[in-house]
């Protein structure tokens, strides 16, 4: 029974740790499928987390925090769009710039407003998205296996976690069953075809980056308003980049993206779980090694195991009408 509990425990934290990755990964998917590479997921998440935590702290409402997080994140996404769609700038440079702006400004503003060394004040319960207990979770708790999975694994997450996982089939449906999705995929492959079909490439790509902004806002909100009770400087800690890696790993497809994020979340959860625990044969492993594990495996997986990942063909290339 102890083993089952331990497994449920690791899987549970896998889900928790996967949520921000998943939201960021889907965010990147919208943008990159439309042909706009976005290395600035990290920065948008961070800015979203800060804006969400700050607003929730001031107004005492998680929902106001969420709205602010999304607004700020969409704002940054529009900056990226303005630079790379309207002005055809380099998408990598623009994305990196956004990451720097977010990393720097969140600390400065946090210090100026709250005077807590770049942190935001700790949030009260109503300023956070608390755990939702699914119906009958309490009654089923003691049923073997099914009950464990339902009550221990599926129940008890924040609203945003459920949103993240529901966003996976929703994104699939949008991409492959709607007009918007068809055009979005087309503009990432061959914008000239979209243009000659009488559709505005610019407007279509802007809509894609807005989707990205909304989702990175949700990712930031989850980190600041659910996982933690407030903003801590650099709290995204490279998750935006891991999400990008997951996106490539998943070959820009929503359902594989979910599994990729769960895998990275699992590695993260495992490393936390195994910290300080003596392992068979190798014995006690230094904490730093366990913390490096997800990143080491990321490199190995990306280098060797995914086969050829073909990005959207027009990705990274600004659209210029040819003469």
């Amino acid at each position, binding site marked *: 029974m102890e083993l089952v509990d331990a497994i449920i425990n690791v899987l549970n934290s896998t889900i928790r740790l996967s949520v921000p990755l998943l939201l960021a990964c889907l965010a990147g998917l919208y943008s990159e499928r439309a042909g706009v590479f976005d290395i600035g997921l990290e920065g948008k998440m961070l800015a979203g987390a800060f804006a969400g935590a700050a607003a929730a702290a001031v107004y005492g409402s998680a929902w106001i925090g969420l709205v602010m997080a999304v607004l700020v994140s969409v704002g940054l996404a529009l900056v990226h769009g303005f630079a790379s769609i309207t002005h055809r700038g380099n998408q990598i440079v623009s994305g990196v710039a956004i990451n720097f702006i977010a990393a720097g400004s969140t600390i400065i503003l946090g210090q100026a407003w709250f005077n807590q060394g770049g942190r935001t004040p700790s949030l009260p319960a109503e300023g956070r998205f608390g755990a939702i207990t699914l119906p009958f979770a309490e009654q089923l708790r003691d049923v073997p296996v099914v009950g464990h999975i339902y009550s221990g694994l599926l129940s008890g997450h924040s609203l945003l976690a459920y949103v993240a996982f529901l966003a996976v089939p929703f994104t699939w449906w949008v991409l492959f069953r709607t*007009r918007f999705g068809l055009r979005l995929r087309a503009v990432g492959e*061959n914008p*000239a*075809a*979209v243009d*000659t*079909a*009488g559709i505005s490439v610019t407007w279509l790509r802007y809509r894609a980056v807005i989707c990205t902004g909304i989702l990175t806002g949700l990712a930031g909100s989850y980190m600041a308003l659910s996982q933690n009770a407030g903003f801590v400087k650099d709290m995204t800690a490279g998750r935006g980049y891991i999400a990008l890696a997951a996106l490539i790993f998943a070959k820009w497809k929503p359902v594989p993206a979910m599994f990729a994020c769960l895998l990275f979340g699992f590695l993260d959860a495992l490393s936390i779980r195994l910290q300080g625990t003596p392992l068979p044969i190798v014995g006690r492993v230094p904490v730093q090694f366990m913390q490096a594990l997800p990143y080491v495996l990321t490199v190995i997986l990306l280098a060797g195991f995914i086969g050829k990942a073909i990005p959207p063909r027009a990705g990274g290339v600004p659209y210029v009408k040819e003469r």
Partner: protein
Amino acid sequence: MAEAAIELVGINKSFGTVHANRDINLVIERGSILGIVGENGAGKSTLMSILYGFYQADSGEIKVGGRPASIRTPNDAIALGIGMVHQHFMLVQNFTVIENIILGAENEALLKRSIANARSELERLEREYGLEVDPDAIIEELPVGLQQRVEILKALYRGADILILDEPTGVLTPAEADHLFRILGQLKEQGKTIVLITHKLREIMAITETVAVMRQGTIVATRKTSDTTVEELAELMVGRRVLLRVEKGAAKPAGVKLSVSNLTVRDSRGVTMVKDVSFDVRAGEIVGIAGVAGNGQSELLEAISGIRRAASGTVLLDGKPIDVTGHVDPGELRDRGLAHVPEDRHHVGLVLAFEESENSILGYHDKPQYLKGPFLDLDAIRADAREKIAKFDIRPPNDRLKTANFSGGNQQKIVLAREMEQDPGVLVVGQPTRGVDVGAIEFIHKQLIAMRDSGKAVLLVSVELDEIRSLSDRILVMFDGRIVGERTPDATEGELGLLMAGVEKQEAAE
């Protein structure tokens, strides 16, 4: 006179200082096929882009069906029944045929019903025009001819009455081109109006009723196709008399310069493309290799010029072997006097991002005349480039201009100048006039003849049968990797055509 489908009145369009279209007046009759010919950069594509709403004219008026029309976006053009098949297909490569067809013409937010509609509409178009294509096939898996058919279907699905085709045969094999012409004929029978933009005069003569000739942004003449000749059209396009048939004296072949024996070459997939081929090229003659594209000519050229490793066989240059089955250094071949003008000048022949002067010495850049110690002698290189520009009439005459900004014909002249001016003993040339204007073709042909007359050996590979016939002193025909026959240039087109189709080979086997 039939009713006008489209009337263009006084169209002007400038890009910066370039006056791309100047006072264009043109009437396109309903239910006819109009050809627009002109050299690259004459303004044909610009004019059609204006008609399709891709650009706006600076001044002038477009009338569709007699009424003035404002065409500001492709949507406006589509609504007026104008469809366009672009030279570079506007297809999403990893989408299915049906997804490409509905893109931009989906009638509601969800795809399901649009796809169902398109499916039945496709069936109708298939019945009506014989335009068969599998709606669920992925575009990149289809041959070019079928991809083009999808483009035509796209236009018809949007209800196009007027179909503009921009250089439609540039990427097609002769058989695919013939098929396209039959389709266009059928569309015309059904009352569609067709505009064909091309610089290939043979096509114009084959299927158009009227032809408009453009030069330097203006329409210089409009003719009934039945009242004109290829010679007249060529002259109108270039603005001076053009010799379509090269004038040359008899060849004076001397000793063997290049000798190929039992050469077998496989392509990158491992398919044997060149099968046991043997021939000689002598000094002072042009040997032409004719054949439909894809019958091993490209691989043969690549093996001889050291780009691709041969599976077996020997090649002798001036009696000394080239290690074609082992490692060949193309630079060493150049030193030994074998110059190569590759078939694909964009990928193999030039670095498009380089300046003209840099490309004009590429591959010869380690010759002492271009070096000053360990450094490039830029002054010498540029002086040398300017000399070549003058000699080969490369336009614009600017050795500092990025190579990408030259037209196809002038890019080809840059490659030819580079290879010919090193005074090689053997010149191996692939598709010397592919995508090149009529005027430049004449010049290139003259240069090749001059090479021959100065006692060089020239091996010419071309899919243009006319070119092979007018330049070669001996013609070898390749089919399915083998040389299936040798003919003199007097051989009729029909005779060569049969050989190229492999007919004689079958008869011999029976």
